[in-house]
Structures are given as structure tokens and as C-alpha cells.
């Protein structure tokens, strides 16, 4: 059964059961993944899937359900399940659907180039990737993870108010983890690359980067507990910054679960800090012309010169605050209800080169790895305490590798402590494009 027939069927059942309006979110896609170990293909994954998410609306309340089967029987079960879910909904929130009006940007996220590549070519790429990592240095013991993958998806959002939107996208990525070892210690290095076209994948750069990062950490020493000035490497700052983006969700603000509540229009950080949500960033695979409620997306400043410009809204939270949706309804998986999040967070670059940042800092710590972001952060209070490794910096130069220390602070303290922003932005898997950043006063614990 095709999606149009299925949607028509579901909408018909939905009217009979008592919903006023109905919406179908359909996505189908495929993923292809190869991993290499010791010069041979270790695992191979080739998959396709279909999912459909139904929402029924009645008196401002929602009932939702999902299915992975498109059949008449499945449509009945889906709508019936959604109605049971509707029947327990309570509270004062009023849900609405979008009717498809507004300006939609032209954005093409699909090339089809990954699917045109033969399996043989993809195998050659992943094996070359492992080899480039392995050959980088004789202290590289092995490559525990070496993956090359691509995926595509097509999505359709259609509702009884006239919304009817489709969007197709594809992208590829590679991950390498290198393990380096000497008599004394073992260290891993990580590199990740996300690309829109197969030819953008720089096999040698990724392999070398992962191995260089592992080797550089060998012989890492300890650092004394205390307060330090810290430079976060670009992707690492993006990772830390991205972890706390939930505080901009109007939903969290309205529930009293954000430290930014009541701070709209006020300074929340250093005047050096400007942050955009740019849903149409050409290089990002997450970019899209409309959000997961079918509302058009657009670029906007979230923080401008340290001042909080706007929270991020979906239709429901916008209605509650008497505002317009910012097009930030984002669906993680079809099994959970959508949340509010930036599509692509972009931290505006500064002037200083990376070496310039080191010089400005003089003495301090260069952080190249953070662990425990899912557990050592409190997204409600902004507090964090994380495992870290990196380098000690003396006289404006990288001195020696250091390991097994923690950094602790509050994200708003970090915002305010930004002393300098570098000019080396990089996009990362955390949906954040960030340059390296120098921050004053971070608590470091170790020996």
C-alpha cells in the first residue's frame, strides 16, 4: 500500500472515530555501513525501513501512535491506538496543526551519489581508511573502530488542513578510533567526518587525525587540581555547547526547566558570543526546509553579542506565548514525541587563529576530549562535571599531554567566561559548528 492510499484510509477512519483533524508523518530510508578490521571487511550492514507516525487532534488535544506496516488493518490499529492515547491526555496545552502556508526555502539535500557508488568502491574506501590510520605511526597498535557509512531518507508530512510536504536527503560519514600504545600506556584517538557528497570524504585526513590524536596522548601525565584558563578544541566546545541547547527550548522554559527563563532580551554571556540556528546550512546533513510539524524553517540569531534573542518554538509552545513557531519541532525517532531543538547551531567565528588563542592564554589547559556528557551534565541547572584529557600549555605553546582530570563549571559561567573565540570553526556530529574557544576560570580536579 502506498503512503497516499494509507493516509487517505487513516484520515477516513480518524474522522469516524471522532478526531477533528489528522496528520501523517511518513519516513522511509536506507542505511549502508561497512567496517574494516585488519585490512578486511569486518561487518557489513544494508538495510531499509519504513515508519509512519499518526497524530489525531480533537479539542486541542493530541493522540499519537506509530506503525511500521502500511496496510488497511495497520491503519485501523494505528488510529485506534492514537485515540486511546488521546483519551488520557490532560492539561491546558492546546495543540494545533500547520496548514502549509508561509515561505518555504528551496533546499535540496539529496544527490543520490552515495547510492551510485558500487559496493566495491565503498569497500576500497573503508579499507584505505583503516590503512591510513594504521600507517600513520608505528605506535598505532590497532584500529578498534573504522566505519564508512551512508544513508538516505524520504519524508512526507500530510494533514487534513492541507499541509503536504516532502523532502529527500542523503549523507555519508566515517568514524575512526585509533589505539596507540607504548610500554607505559594505551591511548585512543577519535576522528569523525560527516559529508554530503562521497568525494568530500578525505580518507587520509580522517585516518591520520585519529592516529595523531592517539599518539599525542601517549605518556600523558597528571595536572594539579585548581582553577585554570582553558581552551576547548573546536569540536569539543561544540560538543559541550550542544549538550546544553535544550535550555533554549520554549517547552523547557515554560515548564520551569530552563535557567534561561525570564532572561529574553538580557545579556546571558560574553559580548563576544553570537549563536545562530541555521537550518539551511549547506554542508549539514541535518538541514531541511521545514521542521517535523511541516512549518518552514529559517535562520535566526539565538544569542547576539551575548544577548538572548529568542527561545526556540514549535506550534504548541508558540501559541502558549502568543508567538510564531520558529520551525524547531524536531523528531528524534518515530517512537517518541517530537521535541524542540535547533537544527544546526552555529557559533560565530572570532578573529584569532588557534596559535593566537594559545598565545593569549599563555598558561593553562587545552582540552581535546570530554567524557560523560550524558551523565555528568545537568541540563536544568546548567551544572557540569566531566572527565577530560588534553595538553598543558606553557608560554603560549602546547607543552605536554595530560589525562585523568575533570572540569566542572556551569554553562552560563562558561558563556560569561569566554575570553576569546578562534577563527577555526568546524561542524561536528553534535549538530554544532564551533571554533576553538578560550574560557577563563574552570575548576579542574585531579591529583
Amino acid at each position: 500500500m502506498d503512503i497516499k492510499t494509507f493516509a487517505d484510509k487513516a484520515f477516513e477512519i480518524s474522522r469516524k472515530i471522532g478526531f477533528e483533524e489528522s496528520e501523517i508523518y511518513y519516513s522511509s530510508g536506507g542505511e549502508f555501513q561497512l567496517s574494516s578490521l585488519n585490512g578486511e571487511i569486518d561487518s557489513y550492514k544494508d538495510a531499509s525501513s519504513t515508519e509512519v507516525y499518526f497524530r489525531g487532534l480533537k479539542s486541542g488535544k493530541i493522540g499519537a501512535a506509530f506503525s511500521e506496516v502500511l496496510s488497511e488493518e495497520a491503519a485501523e490499529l494505528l488510529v485506534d491506538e492514537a485515540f486511546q492515547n488521546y483519551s488520557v491526555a490532560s492539561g491546558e496545552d492546546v495543540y494545533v496543526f500547520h496548514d502549509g502556508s508561509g515561505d518555504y526555502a528551496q533546499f535540496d539535500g539529496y544527490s543520490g551519489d552515495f547510492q551510485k557508488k558500487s559496493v566495491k568502491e565503498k569497500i576500497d574506501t573503508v579499507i584505505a581508511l583503516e590503512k591510513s590510520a594504521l600507517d600513520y605511526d608505528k605506535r598505532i597498535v590497532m584500529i578498534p573502530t573504522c566505519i564508512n557509512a551512508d544513508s538516505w531518507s524520504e519524508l512526507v508530512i500530510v494533514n487534513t488542513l492541507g499541509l503536504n510536504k516532502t523532502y529527500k536527503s542523503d549523507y555519508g560519514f566515517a568514524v575512526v578510533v585509533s589505539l596507540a600504545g607504548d610500554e607505559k600506556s594505551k591511548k585512543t584517538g577519535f576522528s569523525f567526518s560527516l559529508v554530503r557528497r562521497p568525494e568530500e570524504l578525505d580518507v587520509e585526513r580522517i585516518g591520520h587525525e585519529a592516529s595523531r590524536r592517539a599518539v599525542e596522548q601517549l605518556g600523558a601525565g597528571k595536572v594539579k587540581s585548581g582553577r585554570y584558563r582553558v581552551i576547548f578544541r573546536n569540536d569539543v566546545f561544540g560538543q559541550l555547547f550542544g549538550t546544553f541547547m535544550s535550555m533554549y527550548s520554549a517547552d523547557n522554559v515554560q515548564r520551569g526547566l530552563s535557567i534561561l527563563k525570564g532572561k529574553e532580551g538580557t545579556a546571558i554571556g560574553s559580548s563576544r558570543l553570537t549563536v545562530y540556528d541555521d537550518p539551511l546550512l549547506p554542508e549539514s546533513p541535518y538541514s531541511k526546509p521545514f521542521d517535523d510539524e511541516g512549518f518552514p524553517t529559517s535562520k535566526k540569531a539565538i544569542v547576539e553579542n551575548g544577548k538572548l534573542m529568542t527561545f526556540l518554538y514549535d506550534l504548541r509552545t508558540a501559541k502558549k506565548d502568543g508567538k510564531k513557531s520558529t520551525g524547531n519541532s524536531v523528531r528524534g525517532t518515530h517512537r517518541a514525541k517530537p521535541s524542540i531543538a535547533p537544527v544546526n547551531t552555529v557559533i560565530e567565528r572570532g578573529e584569532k587563529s588557534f596559535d593566537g588563542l594559545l598565545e593569549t592564554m599563555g598558561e593553562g589547559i587545552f582540552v581535546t576530549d570530554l567524557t560523560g556528557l550524558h551523565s555528568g551534565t545537568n541540563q536544568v541547572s546548567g551544572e557540569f562535571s566531566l572527565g577530560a584529557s588534553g595538553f598543558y600549555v606553557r608560554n603560549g605553546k602546547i607543552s605536554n599531554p595530560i589525562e585523568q582530570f575533570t572540569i566542572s563549571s556551569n554553562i552560563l559561567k562558561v558563556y560569561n567566561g569566554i575570553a576569546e573565540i578562534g577563527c577555526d570553526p568546524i561542524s561536528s556530529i553534535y549538530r554544532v559548528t564551533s571554533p576553538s574557544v578560550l574560557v577563563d576560570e574552570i575548576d579542574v580536579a585531579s591529583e
Partner: protein
Amino acid sequence: MYSDEAYSAVITKILSGGADFAEIFLEDRYTGSISMVQGEVEGSVSGKLFGAGLRAFKGTRSIYAYTNDLSLDGLMKVADRLKAVIDQERDVDTVIDFREREYVDLCPVLHAPESIPKKEKVGVMKLAHEGASTFSSTISQVIVNYIEYDQNVWIYNSVGVKAQDHRTRTRLSISAVATKNGNMETGFYGPGGAMGFEFFNIKDPRAAGERAARIADRMVKAEYAPAGKMPVIISNEFGGVIFHEACGHALEATGVAKGASVFAGKLGQKIANECVSAVDDPTIPNAWGSANVDDEGTPTRRNLLIDKGILKNYMIDRLGAIKMRMEPTGSARRQDYTYAPTSRMSNTFLLPGEYYPEEIIAATDYGLYAKSLGGGSVMPSTGEFNFAVMEGYMIENGRITRPVRGATLIGKGDEVLTKIDMVGNDLARGQGMCGSISGSIPADVGQPTVKVSELIVGGRN
């Protein structure tokens, strides 16, 4: 469902491409979640997962594909794709003689998720909400989530395994936020079991809510934990996440078979202090991480990992077994059919020792008492781990003195095992979700109260 002959035909098609081994995993799952914010049902979503994962081995190579098309035609198409990858045509015309082993169900269910009206589940959530929201005037926000699923799986493979299992899970989780003088702290508690709605005959939702609120309330009144190296006493139950992260992941064949684990090649060697013994046990009736058979159809069994400090075994899946030339241990798990299975923990815990928890505290002059832990993570190839202390207290002169917040504990797994120097007699288990390459799966962690002679505490200076 089709006949055994039909599935045999799919498997022999894969084998005819030159594979050494072929497997079909079929899944049909009902899953639902309800979320409640400040006592109001804010979202209720449910639905069905329906898919098949097909896998082939050639030597130590693994080839995996999945689909939502479970018709025989659909499965044959996927089998063709796997066959094309190996591409070593050969004649295979045998019909596989499947043998299904009978078992006594370890996780019987009284009230399956779909049989209970949603409003009864909402009733349980309201009790949890009340327990938390009325605990203290500092409690400013309470979020209650109800998560349930009923997973049915069928597994067929080329060595004649035919297995069927059902995994029913019910979990109630409460996040309470306490606010005081502009500070906000969160407390979390998420009990669960391999049971249906009858879980609430043994678990009082109101008390569960109170527990989450207590953590938030204590912590919002606390000062920051101190920074530096010190003795740490980790309380029982969810405290077992330290063993899970520091050691458990590094005992999974996933890392060991490649040599990418600090514990590779150390069977029979002393890797921990003598007071440390640990097991992975998926056979505990109705426990959160239990199953009758694993996701490769191998019957589950209790697996002694460490006995009095000596490494006795790893957790091994079928592919790991080939690579390591050992036997599978019934440890293959996956989130759902979209993941190939690999070796994973189930219910993993340290065995009890001789001390009362009070004796352990009394024997500590100065240190941190980690009463509740949050989650953590590890890099198995280096053993470097971290985890968050959700509820902490200082110990001074053998007594618990004041609450402290915001601490993270870091260390290296192989080092921490040798630094556990006292083990209590109060074993208990707690529930968590464990993430790794085969996805996110329910897993119990557990331990009695233990003392670690020194760990780095990431507090404030």
C-alpha cells in the same frame, strides 16, 4: 509466521552464496510511553515495531541486513542481497532440521501491557507524582514517565536453532526538580522489571516518587563536592554502575575478541582485589535484564566473570566465540531488529562480602559517600571511565556529615578493581538503559556497598 520449511529456504538461499552461517531474527513488538508533567498527561505515544534482521557469517566477517517486509518474498529479497555480498556460489539443497529447546519461562507475565487500560497506568503515575510533589516545599517540578513494551522474537539459524522468546518490560521513572535560592537540582529514580502491570504489586509508585524527590531536595541544599583524589564509598544498588562501566564493558567479546580491551588475554589472572567477585546473570526471574534465550537463540545462563579477584570468563556472542575460539555464553543482545546482536551485559553485579555498610563508613576517616549514582561511560580499550554522583555526602571521622553535589568520578577500570578494598553484605540491584554498538537495552547493575581506596572526584576547588 511461515512454516519451518519456508525459513529453512531463506537460510539455505543465504548459504548458497558461500556463507558459513545464516540467521533470521523476527520481531513483533508493542511499545508505549506516557509522560506526565506536573500531574498532567502531556504525551502518550504507542505503536508497533515489526521487522526482520538477517545475518550471515563468512569466516569472521559479519553481514547484516534488515527490513520491514516480512513476507516470504521480502525475506528472500534480503537473502539475495546477503548472498551477493559474499558471492561464492555453491549448491546447498538441504532442508534444515530445526530443533526447539523447551524451557521453563523465567519471566512469566500476569498483565501484559496491551491488556491494561491506559487510565490505570496514568493512575500509577499520579501516585508517583504525588509522592514526589508533596515530599518537600523545594520540589518545583515533577516529570513522571511510564515505559512499557512487549517484544516477541523468533530466531532460526543454519545450525538448527529455532527459538522463541517474549520480553515484557515495565518501567516507571521519576525526575524531580528542587529549587532553592536560584539553584536547581534534579533527582531521578527509575525502577523497572521484566513484568507487566503487576510490577506495581511489588513496587510502590508513591515511594518511588518520594525517593526521586529526596535526592533533589538533599542536593539543592548541598554545597559543591570537593575536588581531588580521596577514598570513595559507593552505596549498593545502582552504585553497581561503577562495575558496569569500569569493568563490565571491557569483558564483552566485542572488545576482547579484537584485543581492544584492557582485560584481553587475562583469563585465569588476578585482575581485582580478592574481595571482588562478579557475575552476569540473565536468568534472575523477572529481572530488568533477564531473558529465556539471548538474541541469537542461545539459552541464557549465569556467568561467573570474576571469582575472588581472578578473571574467569567473558561475555561472548556467536561471532565473538568464533574469533576467540570459545563457547558463546548466552550474552548476545540487541535493541531491536535494526541492530545486529553482539555480546552485552544483562544483570551484572558484584557478589556480597562480609562487612555491614556501617562498618565500612566507620572505617573511613575522610572521603566521599556516593549514595546514588547517575550514568557513566567507558572506553574499553583503555579502561578510562567516568560516572556522575547524583546524591553524595562527605564522610569525616567515620561518620556521614553533610550533603555534597556536582561530583563526577573518573578512573581506569583495571586500576579501580585493585583498589576496591572493602565489600559489604547488602547486595541490591538497580535498573538502567545500557548503550553500545547494538543499541540501547535494559540492564540491571548491582553491588553491595563497596569502598574504593582512592578515586578522582571531580568537584570544585
